[in-house]
Structure formats: structure tokens, C-alpha cells
């Protein structure tokens, strides 16, 4: 599983019908930090996406590219006296290998942590070959 380098031209276009305000330009994204590990059934991707609700997340698999896109709907408290972070949409893409069963990808979100389970496809599971 490799990370895909994203060129800005490839970004999904929001069909909301109106231009976003200048402070929320499409080109500004946060890249969520991820852990990826191998479990016994497949790959698990854990991503930190604080501020997102379940309905803000848009996870798609197209060709062999897994896209995590989170629209930040949360507002910052006003008026700010000190700012250490800025809220933006989240965006990250990964290239999936042949071993992932695309129809069985499972996602959960808890306390701003997104867990994606990518199970191995049947044909990629280890098989024992009987010797006759």
C-alpha cells in the first residue's frame, strides 16, 4: 500500500453550486496522520481526523486509489485570542494493492479517530496445498 502523491488538479470537485469563501479554498487541506498495520485478516488504517462527524467523511475507492476526504463543518470559537491550529478539510489518498477486497472495506469513527479495515481478498489468503 503506497501513498499516492496528489496533484491539485486531481482533487474532487464539490458540486455545491457555489464558490467557497476565500478562507476555505479547496487547495487547503490537512493531511491526517495515519498508522497502517497488518492484522490477521488484512490491513488496518487508523487516521486522526479530529473535528469530523460521521456524515462529514467521504471515503471512496476508485480504480485502485483509496481516498479519505473529510469536510470540516465545525466552526472555530470566536473571537480568537490565540490560534494554534486551523480547521480545514482533511484529504489523503493511498494506492491499494490487489490483495484488498474492495467490497468489504469497513470504516468506523470514534472520538476523531477513523479506523478503516481493508480485508484481504479471498484469492490472496494463504492456501495449503495438499501433496498427493
Amino acid at each position: 500500500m503506497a501513498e499516492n502523491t496528489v496533484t491539485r488538479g486531481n482533487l474532487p470537485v464539490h458540486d455545491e453550486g457555489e464558490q467557497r469563501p476565500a478562507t476555505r479554498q479547496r487547495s487547503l487541506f490537512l493531511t491526517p496522520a495515519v498508522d497502517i498495520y497488518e492484522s490477521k485478516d488484512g490491513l488496518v488504517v487508523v487516521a486522526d481526523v479530529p473535528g469530523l462527524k460521521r456524515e462529514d467523511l467521504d471515503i471512496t475507492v476508485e480504480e485502485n486509489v483509496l481516498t479519505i476526504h473529510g469536510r470540516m463543518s465545525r466552526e472555530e470559537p470566536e473571537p480568537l485570542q490565540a490560534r494554534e491550529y486551523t480547521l480545514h478539510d482533511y484529504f489523503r489518498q493511498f494506492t491499494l494493492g490487489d490483495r484488498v477486497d474492495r467490497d468489504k472495506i469497513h470504516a468506523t469513527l470514534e472520538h476523531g479517530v477513523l479506523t478503516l479495515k481493508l480485508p484481504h481478498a479471498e484469492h490472496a489468503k494463504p492456501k495449503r496445498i495438499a501433496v498427493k
Partner: protein
Amino acid sequence: MDSYWNPFQELEVLRRGIDDVFASVWPTGAGRTSAFLPGRSARSYPLLNIAARDDRFVIDAFAPGLDKDSLEVTVDRNVVRISGEKRDLTDVAPERFHRRERAAGRFTRTVQLDGEIDEKRVEATYADGILHLDLPKSAAALPRKISVAVK
């Protein structure tokens, strides 16, 4: 020792100069971060956005995946202390990781606000990975109007 030209010192002067420019453009926000020091995030966790209203302070802490039971917020006059723990994926053997970018561990962060807080009315909620603190100012810290007696 100081008689030698030190390029690193020159860089430090330049960095401060740049910081000063940023601080003058955004007197409250971005000026607090330093131009070439990305390590700040390692020192202060969680990151905070602090809003000051007439009657209260509002703090939003950027803190995903905290262990709810370990989360502790204490308020003493104008000092707010947040501590807790972000759990690691302890049940996964290190050799099974392909990528490991998320940090974990215990943290404590203390912020000093410019007004006294009414401890009894503080409300803290943790949702969607953001810790939200609502800190009403104590009556003594609220601005008071003083009527002028004209004689």
C-alpha cells in the same frame, strides 16, 4: 569567543526578524508561532484555540482518540490544566506496522488566561476528538461600569 563571525547567530537574528514581522501582521494569532521551528508541536500537546469573549473564555483542544477516563481538567483562578492520555495501539506487534505517524502517550498542558475563572460553572465536553471547554469569568473579573458622580 564572540569575536568570530557565527553564521548560526546570523540565522537566529534573521529568524527573529521574520517572527517580528509576522507578529506585527497578526498580533494575536500566527505571531505566536516561530517561523522555522516545527518542533513546537512536540512540546505542546494538545494544540489549543482560545477565544476570549466579554464574559467567558472558550478553549477548543485538538485531541483525537483520548482515553475518556484519563481526561482531567482543573481550574485554579486563571490557570487551566488539561491532562490525559492518548492510547497507543498496544495490541499490535511493532513488526506489523507499515506506517506509524500517530503519536501517543500521557500529556499535561497548562494555560494561563488573562482573567479569573468561575470554577463552579466550567463545562467540558469531549466530542469528535475535540475537547471543548467553556470557562465563564468570575464576577470579579468582569468589567464593571463605574458611574461618575458629577459635582
